[in-house]
């Protein structure tokens, strides 16, 4: 039979919807996809095409060249693989199908907070759920006052604007007299937020800013880039997609040497690395100091630049050379013992750095800038770059593809938190980026607030707070006369504190505390903190809502704004986060104020107007095409790269520091925190202190001899995406245990594994005093000896709540301690643990004592199931 005689398959679709399926949340876009729909079914998810409705050349695709090689954008978006697998999220067996109430939570009787995490749930109607939440809000307001309700409306989440997954409850509660705000710390940027800001000013959450045209300048000038804790094949995925790969490949073709400094052969290192320098977790400061030592002793630093551009070099010099009261030089020999890098390699790194035009590349903090005292490596990085002429050709810190790409025409901002959007739409997300509630608790201190109040702390940690705010002293609760009161109710949305923040096991203990009378959770999936809630409200996913999304962050080839039509009907009885809170607002008598009587199209038009898109197109044309792609600005090459203007003329272009210069020594820190040994006025090697004792020099290292590192996950965006079957079945997705359970992988070097009798595929426990996490061993050369690696964000599956986790939620055993005494960031990588095989008698005891945990329904592909926690009424 010839081909023309064969039956053809009908592949027509009814409509093509646009969905931005990255998971950074916060009103931003990324991961632009087309969802093909037929008969109400999502048939396929594929990369969005920039030339769908526009001639590609009219977008003015740019070109960057070096050594005869060139880099240009493609006509298609490059979403991460998990964005393309989004059907598995929307239709996950873990989706919450209808509202739930904990079986033994009775608002009119016994509330049994101690049973949170243990008790199951019964189905209730939306009517009952809305009544319950509304009456609890009313009761708490009456009994304690409005600030007794904690709104946890922040974190990562799906890319939605009108239906943003976060903070609608905060907007409602604000209308009703206020609430206690959970302020989200810059969890991916701690080292720069608490450190670098004091050297080069505000920056962008402490990262170097301005950051225009960094990719062009680095490409044209660098001989070498240091990817210090950077894995551009992982961390951009959930935010901007996969363009970074193409830049790294271009740099390879152009002959720019790419050196990876990290404990692991991370995914980028594995395919782009020209040189891997394995460094023990959280010892980067020792390595940096030794590099500076070599420069000082060999005179290979830019003394003239430092003289005119920096203050405090004398302090650095005395400390590094050991001529100050510290009294010992920070030599390569000294550093080698701390950081595990051979002395000769440290010297070589220092000389290569000094000799070659070098930039330092990141995409978020990786492991290196999220550990105890991460402000020290964060600040030392600024010092190193300053000593080599920061802002000069090819001397930058760059967050690869987050910033630094060619500028778009007519786009107001490329910030994380799109400032062009009006308050009506951004206010829910303020909970994440500002400190604005009358009474607030940093996210890292929630458990302390519940268990150890009153609290005093400096700085809220709000992501976009100014540097000065770090000196503001806060108390929790605030004074009674200002309405201060301890919290008694928590209303959380898309929560992931247990698995993504500090000491999740203590979060669990706090959620079971008897002062917390009511916990309301809204989320599409029954996971993490939902398991400790009293009322659970089923939210829905991006595919199920009509919205508009602005992809303005850099990283995709082009910025775009798209009308996001509904692809599929809501799963079960789910509603959007906005619709849920609107229904509760209505019950409480705030319905009109909450919705403002605005339709979805009204809100879409508000975004169009706020973005001043009328200067670029018409509303009618935009609405018909459903998408607008920004052209490259004709004069993009004129934007001065990074700190170039400061480099050229620091007096006329001062930094946002008190002196206007790079402050290697911060008089401001010295004035505000004169006794702070953990974050002294200039960066030092801080091995231990009152907040942490998590290095191999600790006495505890006798019991816990391995250093654990935890990066942002490859197959999730923090907690999101753990149920994607097709990711779980990859070699780094999950490890299929002997018992049929899919365990989160732990990477362990063959030598460390052999010493413990561990083989690849074994179910092992990683533990310290804070608890036990069960994981599956991946024994391989992708991790240096003495270090084990577990991605954070695996869904918590309590075997013993607060003690033993089977889901691989590694942060359950992360330190509770903050970044340091006066810095309320998190320290969730670079702490000591041990790893051992689980003994048969342990399994037997757990199975005997916690039979319910083992009997829970479980999906062999996707893992946790919604119905594991639901019983008939």
């Amino acid at each position: 039979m010839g081909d023309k005689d064969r039956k053809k398959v009908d592949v027509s679709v009814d409509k093509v919807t646009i969905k931005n399926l990255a998971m950074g949340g916060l009103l931003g876009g990324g991961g632009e996809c087309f969802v093909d729909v037929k008969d109400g079914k999502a048939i396929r998810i594929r990369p969005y095409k920039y030339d769908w409705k526009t001639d590609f050349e009219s977008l003015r695709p740019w070109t960057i060249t070096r050594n005869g090689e060139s880099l240009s954008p493609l006509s298609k978006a490059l979403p991460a693989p998990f964005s393309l697998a989004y059907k598995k999220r929307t239709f996950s067996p873990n989706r919450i199908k209808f509202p739930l109430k904990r079986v033994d939570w009775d608002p009119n009787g016994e509330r049994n907070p101690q049973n949170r995490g243990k008790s199951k749930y019964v189905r209730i109607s939306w009517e009952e759920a809305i009544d319950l939440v509304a009456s609890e809000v009313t009761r708490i307001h009456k009994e304690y006052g409005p600030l007794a309700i904690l709104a946890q409306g922040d974190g990562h989440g799906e890319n939605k604007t009108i239906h943003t997954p976060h903070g609608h409850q905060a907007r409602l509660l604000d209308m009703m007299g206020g609430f206690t705000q959970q302020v989200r710390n810059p969890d991916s940027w701690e080292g720069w937020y608490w450190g670098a800001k004091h050297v080069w000013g505000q920056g962008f959450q402490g990262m170097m800013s301005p950051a225009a045209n960094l990719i062009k300048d680095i490409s044209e000038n660098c001989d070498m880039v240091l990817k210090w804790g950077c894995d551009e094949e992982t961390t951009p995925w959930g935010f901007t997609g996969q363009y970074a790969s193409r830049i790294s490949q271009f740099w390879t073709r152009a002959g720019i040497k790419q050196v990876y400094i990290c404990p692991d052969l991370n995914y980028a290192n594995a395919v782009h690395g020209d040189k891997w320098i394995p460094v023990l977790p959280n010892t980067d400061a020792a390595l940096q100091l030794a590099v500076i030592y070599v420069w000082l002793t060999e005179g290979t630093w830019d003394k003239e630049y430092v003289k005119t551009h920096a203050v405090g070099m004398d302090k650095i010099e005395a400390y590094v050379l050991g001529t100050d009261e510290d009294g010992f030089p920070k030599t390569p020999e000294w550093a080698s013992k701390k950081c595990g890098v051979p002395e000769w390699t440290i010297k070589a790194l220092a000389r290569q750095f000094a000799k070659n035009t070098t930039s330092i590349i990141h995409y978020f903090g990786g492991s290196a800038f999220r550990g105890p005292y991460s402000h020290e490596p964060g600040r030392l990085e600024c010092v190193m770059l300053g000593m080599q002429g920061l802002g000069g050709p090819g001397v930058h810190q760059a967050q690869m593809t987050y910033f630094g790409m060619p500028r778009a025409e007519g786009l107001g901002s490329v910030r994380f938190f799109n400032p062009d959007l009006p308050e009506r739409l951004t206010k829910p997300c303020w909970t994440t980026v500002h400190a604005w509630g009358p009474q607030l608790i940093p996210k890292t201190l929630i458990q302390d607030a519940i268990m150890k109040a009153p609290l005093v702390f400096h700085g809220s940690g709000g992501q976009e707070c100014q540097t000065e705010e770090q000196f503001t002293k806060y108390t929790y609760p605030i004074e009674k006369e200002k309405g201060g009161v301890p919290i008694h109710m928590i209303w959380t949305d898309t929560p992931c504190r247990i698995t993504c923040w500090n000491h999740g096991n203590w979060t669990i203990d706090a959620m079971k505390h008897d002062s917390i009378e009511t916990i309301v959770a809204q989320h599409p999936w029954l996971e993490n903190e939902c398991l400790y809630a009293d009322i659970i409200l089923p939210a829905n996913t991006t595919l199920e809502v009509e919205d508009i999304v602005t992809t303005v962050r850099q990283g995709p080839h082009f910025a775009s704004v798209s009308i996001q039509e509904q692809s599929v009907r809501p799963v079960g009885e789910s509603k959007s986060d906005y619709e849920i809170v609107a229904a509760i607002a209505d019950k409480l008598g705030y319905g009109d104020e909450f919705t403002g009587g605005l339709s979805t199209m009204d809100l879409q038009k508000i975004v169009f107007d706020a973005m001043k898109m009328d200067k670029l197109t018409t509303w009618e044309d935009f609405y018909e095409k459903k998408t607008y792609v920004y052209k490259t600005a004709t004069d993009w090459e004129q934007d001065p790269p990074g700190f170039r203007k400061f480099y050229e003329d620091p007096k006329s272009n001062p930094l946002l520091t008190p002196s206007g210069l790079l402050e290697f020594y911060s008089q401001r820190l010295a004035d505000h925190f004169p006794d702070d040994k953990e974050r002294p006025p200039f960066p030092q090697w801080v091995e231990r202190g009152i907040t942490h004792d998590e290095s191999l020099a600790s006495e505890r290292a006798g019991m816990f001899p391995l250093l654990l590192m935890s990066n942002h996950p490859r197959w999730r965006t923090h907690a999101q995406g753990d149920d994607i079957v097709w990711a779980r079945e990859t070699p780094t997705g999950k490890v299929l245990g002997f018992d049929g359970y899919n365990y989160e992988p732990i990477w362990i070097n063959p030598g460390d594994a052999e010493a413990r009798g561990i083989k690849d595929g074994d179910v092992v426990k990683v533990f310290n005093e804070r608890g036990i996490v069960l994981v599956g061993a991946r024994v391989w050369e992708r991790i240096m000896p003495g270090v084990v690696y577990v991605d954070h964000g695996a869904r918590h599956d309590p075997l013993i709540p607060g003690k033993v986790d089977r889901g691989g939620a590694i942060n359950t055993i992360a330190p509770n301690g903050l970044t340091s005494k006066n810095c309320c960031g998190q320290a969730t990588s670079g702490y000591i643990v041990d790893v051992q095989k689980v003994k048969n008698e342990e399994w037997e005891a757990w199975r005997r004592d916690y039979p319910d945990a083992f009997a829970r329904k479980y999906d062999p592909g996707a893992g946790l199931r919604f119905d594991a926690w639901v019983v008939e009424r």
Partner: protein
Amino acid sequence: MKVFVIDVDKCTGCYACQFVCKDEHVGNDWSPIAKPQPDTGQFWMHLKEYIRGTVPKVEMHYIPLLCQHCDDAPCIKACDVEGVMYKREDGLVEIDADKCIGCRMCVDACPYDAIYFNDDLNLAQKCTGCAHLLDGGEWKVPRCADACHTEAIMFGEEEDFADLIAKAEILMPEEGCKPRVYYLNIPKKFVAGTIYDPAAKEIVEGATLTLKGADGATCTATTDGFGDFWFRGLADDASFTLTIAAPGFATKTIDGIVTAKDVNLGDIALAK
């Protein structure tokens, strides 16, 4: 005639190809080109990963493995049922999902293990080249190539890829199947290390390394600013002797280097 050309050097191992193959085929029925692919455990597009070397000289590569759409396909020969397995005019090899009787002969016949048996549906399944989409007219490439962000997976007319095919290799040429999937830049073995001076605790830059094979052929390398040297593109299971020479140091020889695996000789001390 269509071909796949896959540049292994460009593949970053993101698995988008494997995911979108499932996105297209899990839960969608494109009969007779394909009935649904099982959700887990089967991979019509299968990304294979390889970790080579030891800390800190470790590299990875990934090979996307799919039906090789052979011109001399053993599966077609093995299939006894008229019209089930066939080669299209564009070169793609297909299994008619409506006609397959589930005899498994093709599964056993494929040297590439690219044909899977679906127990639930009782039929053999594999990469179709997304023939259903190509036939629809709007698609020019299959899902895997559409989703590949580095253009490592290329698909198109054979003559358009003539230059690349000339440089490419095929998998398992000894099987003689004449596959229509071509691979570029599959790495061969490496021998690597770092040279340092134990007295000065310094790397040695510019040391000359000579790697001599059992057949007497030699290649040379020079250490870089990190003291590193890399010999790449070496054959499997070959034996070598390495000679290290640097001004001011005694020449050092390392015998018995065998490339059964990639070899990291570690940090090598050079005496004066």
